[in-house]
């Protein structure tokens, strides 16, 4: 079995508040693993300890007890940083730099130079669809564009692990979908993605496995199917069902004492999907 991309064991992080010697346990004996090549989502409400866990994995914070490893390296080991690309929540890169200069800056920090860096920047700008805005300063970027240049920044040194903290926070549904598509592309290309979010629908769409954290403790963990399926219920979507057929089905269900209908009606799209559909339609009409 290959080495896990992230291995968090009995991680506890305690913060002391001020001079009063009060302690706040942000992460409480947390353990989980992210396998190489999978998309793992850590979800939980604000203040549940997601970002703290992420910062310990990134080496920006030290654990009070327990350990965090990245591809077998202690998260405090600087070599681990070569394996990680990180996109913080609402990133504010240097506004005075253009998109291309931003990637050049981070690339140089990772020791990439010359034509290798130039090619890499061109590839990444294409990947995040910012080729036309490459020379614009980030001060003029929209939130969605900032997230996408941030995502390109995370990939500059071709890390094996990509850590994303609320990657679609504050982004409109179209931008949000672009980012989701990029995450799926990363998975397709073999990257490991460790994602923190409280947007459940987003997590549901991209993650292979999910951990649910509350008050610093892992409450549930597993694959999406394991977590969201209701074993005692069965859903059936019919097409062109006549009233006669529906009547027969109702009779059949009524003949079984234990079975019952919980919900019945026409399936609905989500408001988000409808919004995207209208936006796409509008775009097509404008280009026609």
């Amino acid at each position, binding site marked *: 079995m290959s080495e896990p991309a992230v291995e968090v064991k009995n991680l506890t992080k305690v913060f002391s508040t001020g001079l009063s010697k009060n302690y706040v346990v942000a992460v409480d004996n947390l353990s989980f693993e992210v396998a190489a090549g999978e998309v793992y989502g850590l979800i939980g409400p604000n203040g549940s300890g997601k970002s703290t866990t992420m910062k310990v994995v990134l080496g920006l914070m030290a654990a009070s007890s327990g350990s965090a490893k990245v591809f077998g390296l202690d998260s405090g080991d*600087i*070599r*681990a*940083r070569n394996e990680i690309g990180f996109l913080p929540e609402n990133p504010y890169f240097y506004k005075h730099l253009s998109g291309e200069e931003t990637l050049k800056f981070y690339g140089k920090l990772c020791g990439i130079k010359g034509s290798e860096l130039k090619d890499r920047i061109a590839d990444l700008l294409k990947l995040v669809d910012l080729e036309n805005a490459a020379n614009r300063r980030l001060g003029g970027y929209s939130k969605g564009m900032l997230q996408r240049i941030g995502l390109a920044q995370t990939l500059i*040194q071709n890390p094996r692990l990509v850590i994303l903290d609320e990657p679609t926070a504050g982004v409109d549904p179209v931008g949000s979908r672009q980012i989701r598509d990029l995450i799926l592309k990363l998975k397709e*290309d073999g990257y490991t993605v460790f994602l923190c979010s409280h947007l459940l629908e987003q997590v549901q769409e991209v993650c292979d496995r999910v951990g649910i954290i509350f008050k610093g403790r892992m409450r549930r963990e597993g694959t999406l199917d394991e977590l969201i399926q209701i074993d005692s219920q069965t859903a059936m979507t019919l097409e062109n069902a006549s009233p006669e057929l529906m009547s027969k089905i109702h009779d059949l269900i009524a003949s079984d004492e234990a079975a019952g209908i919980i919900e019945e009606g026409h399936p609905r799209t989500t408001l988000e999907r409808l919004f995207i559909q209208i936006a796409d339609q509008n775009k097509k009409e404008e280009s026609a």
Partner: protein
Amino acid sequence: MSDSKTTLQSPARSVPLFSISRVWTLAISTLTQLIRMKTFYFLFAFAVLLLVIGNFNFASSPAQALSTIKKVSFGAMDLFAWLFAIVATALLIPRDIEDRTLYTILSKPVRRIEYLLGKLGGVLIVIGISLSVMFLVCAGMIQWQEMGYIADEVSASPNGISDETRQAILLIEKNGFHSDLAVAALASFMKAAVVASVTILLSTFASSSLFTIIVSVLVFLVGHAHTMATNFWLAETDNNMVVQMLLKLFKIIIPNFQIFSFSEGIVQGAALVPALIWQMTGLTGAYLVVFLLLSLLTFVDKEF
């Protein structure tokens, strides 16, 4: 992206213990940031100041007029250097923390000492460029004025240069431009470097930029009375051991900015003493090393 899968299998890449290239990247980024914040606009203000004192100088003699230009322009250069060093250094690191830019930088294979050196380096490059430009503008202005005054003296003596005229020309030349003035500019630069390193140390643990700026200015001012204050207090025999220890600690912690004051003499025409330059360079280097090490001690385990 097509070949990424093969790269993704590669083992952990090594990271050099220290990379001058990463420091340089951070320094150039800081320089770009400060340039795009239109920092160099003050150079126009400096040029205007020089033009004003050059053309509306009501000194009683040419020598005095030249001396005034030198004092004002080198005073302005010195003021700019230390004030800019404090303000720019105090603002840069907290802003990176506030904007979370620091997260993305430190999540790359960047060592914290490289980050600190890069930031300090960027500020010092801006100060170095500014002082050089100001020095050249100042040198040009002094020489232009000097030549004008000498030409006036010569034209005022149509029957040949008298001893009196020769004396006047010598006095103008003495108060005019001389290469030793470059050492005065260098002293301003070194003073700014020391005060920037003190500010870096303060900004690694201070909670606000305002606190950092105020304390840095205080340290700077107290550092100008260093010798006088420590000699006076340490000579007091009534002081108990604790007070004596505290005073000795003060003597070590607060940099002695008086070591740079010999540059004022150079501006006023005093002879240059090479030993003082070596002393100034040595102490500047020592202060930089000590304050950067102390900054690293507080910054290395800082949690963000």
